[in-house]
């Protein structure tokens, strides 16, 4: 069982969904792939299809339209799937809370594994968040 978690966390394929973001967080996610940060050395890579994904990376405050897409994407993804909320918007809806197209917070729609707040979070913060996710997975394993 521990081996399984180890293998899963060594090769996280990330699917990036922008659920109505202002694009700042998306740019910071792309920064993680640049030579300065290079997340490929941890075995992570961005994939184009949700069917290949291990991590669903969500940026942006949820609105009514993207909530539907998000739900269907979550159902289409092969499990085990981890959900990461990048930026303050998906974590707490930021300044869009209570505005008319907004439905609810992200974690009221699908379960979220790791929150990475910041507007936008630095690439270091995103990598630290993913490291927290990995720690959480292996720690959970130690208990069980």
């Amino acid at each position, binding site marked *: 069982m521990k081996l399984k978690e180890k*293998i899963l966390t060594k090769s996280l394929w990330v699917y990036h969904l922008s659920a109505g973001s202002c694009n700042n967080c998306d740019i910071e996610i792309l920064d993680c792939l640049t*030579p300065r940060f290079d997340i*490929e050395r941890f*075995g992570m890579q961005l994939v184009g299809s949700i069917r*290949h994904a291990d991590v669903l990376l969500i940026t942006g405050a949820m609105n009514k339209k993207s909530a539907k897409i998000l739900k269907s994407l979550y159902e289409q993804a*092969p499990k*085990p799937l981890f959900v990461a909320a990048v930026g303050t918007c998906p974590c707490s809806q930021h300044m869009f809370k209570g505005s008319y197209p907004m439905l609810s917070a992200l974690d009221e729609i699908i379960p979220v594994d790791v929150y990475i707040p910041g507007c936008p979070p630095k690439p270091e913060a995103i990598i630290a968040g993913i490291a927290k996710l990995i720690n959480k997975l292996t720690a959970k394993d130690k208990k069980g």
Partner: protein
Amino acid sequence: MIKMILQYLIFPGLAFCFFMGAMGFWLERKLTARFQYRVGPPWYQNFIDVMKLFLKETMIPRDATKTIFIASPIISLSAVILVSIILANNYFLNISFIGDVIVILYLLLIPSLFIILGALSSKNPLALVGAARETKLMLAYEFVFIASLIIAIIKSGNSIMMADIIGIQILNKPNIASFSGAIAFVLAIFYAQAKLGIVPFDMAEAEQEIMAGTVIEYSGPLLGFYKISKLMLYFSLPLFIISLFVKISVESAFLRYLIFFAEYILIIFIMSVIKNINPRLRIKDALGFFWFLLFPLGILGIILAQFGL
């Protein structure tokens, strides 16, 4: 009997080909990373990726034709395993049979064919676009590959047996040391590039335009089968090129393996350089490149080979 099973399963068969292919693919990823001043993945990354895919769930789309959707990765993988075993036994143990060049040619077609079928059966519009592109690309590169194969066959005195093609190079000199042989080598490199879907010819799986193209609906173990077949092709295609054109014979076995690995690394390096200095071609440009540039070159090579150059 046990020796034969070991030959097929361990060395120089399945396990060896898979290991070498994974290392070759890692080398390609690492070289790409170094070209971009990145660090790149650790050496065991591809093994971990494959193992992870087998831990995941398999999703089958509701509209998909289930039998073909499930069967095509498996058939594709089995064809690749077969062709790898034939090629590796040929190169390392000199086990050959009459007409195996033709068998290899057919078996190398099967993976692409079943990738197309699998994509079509998944009923995903992006997969359909990918399948259409893959079909056109196949039409483009098969021509060129057959031209390069004909040059090697003419060089060996019109024999369609791998042992003869390898043997004539041991007797005289490697095929690449002549004009026609060099042309055929270049054609074969571009063929391998297109077959493996490396960057100038990766329009069938173009990540940025059509997501993952032909494999978009595949997940879990089925994607793992595709991944393994791609990894094994990473070894068997360079192996095929080496045995057709650059078989260098030396007395000591150690030196022979050393030369083989050096050649393998060199071919991966060449493909990686082509990958990193080129953008993705449009399908039209790829067809033009193969049909109007490389194919006349192949015809020229065949004529030169007929005159013994």
